């Protein structure tokens, strides 16, 4: 249910993982590479992970989400390597009996992933510059 891959993510296969006859709702979050950061044009994002710890943290997020919200299943897939514009870097899917806990848990999972999971991105800009990004601007 928690994986790091170095190729394109198939969204349907992630939502299929959380399908359950008891689930009436699936909420998903899909992270995509944007063309601009501020006013700088992006070629692609380059992701690097500390894989064993990243999987451990994703499992922890899953366990915390299951404890805090009335959900059935949660799956997280993050891609590493170069991710071009409009390509998907991360998919989180959460199933639940009802939609509110599915939304809450999905949002919780992406918020917490951005805080805890040891993955880093570097922006490759069209002007040739490369820039490591911090999710938390205070820490830049």
């Amino acid at each position, binding site marked *: 249910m928690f994986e790091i891959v170095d190729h394109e993510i198939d969204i349907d296969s992630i939502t299929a993982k959380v399908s359950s006859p008891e689930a009436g709702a699936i909420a998903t979050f899909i*992270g995509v590479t944007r063309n601009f950061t501020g006013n700088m044009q992006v070629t692609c994002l380059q992701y690097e992970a500390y894989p064993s710890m990243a999987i*451990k943290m994703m499992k922890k997020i899953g366990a915390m989400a299951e404890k805090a919200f009335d959900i059935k299943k949660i799956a997280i897939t993050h891609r590493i390597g170069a991710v071009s514009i409009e390509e998907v870097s991360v998919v989180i899917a959460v199933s639940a009996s009802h939609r509110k806990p599915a939304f809450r848990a999905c949002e919780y999972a*992406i918020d917490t992933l*951005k805080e805890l999971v040891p993955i880093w991105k570097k922006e490759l800009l069209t002007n040739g510059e490369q820039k*490591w*990004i911090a*999710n*938390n601007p205070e*820490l830049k």
Partner: protein
Amino acid sequence: MNIKVLVFAHIKELIGSGSIDLELSEGATGNDLLQKMEASFPQIKGHRKYLKLSMNGEYINADATIIQDAEIAIFPPVSGG
């Protein structure tokens, strides 16, 4: 004790390697480890205030004691998603 330290992202680029072997005395803390790293790689000085430390895949504070044979990692704030 000999400790293997993994480094990632910007820190890895500054050091030029993703894995460093360090000799630490028994009972050394994360702070001792960071000091030793800075002594060996002065180019990472100035980054310490935001560096994260992990031991065996769990975040630790800089005052935590480093356990023999643990996998230690040092990295900048994460930016996945």
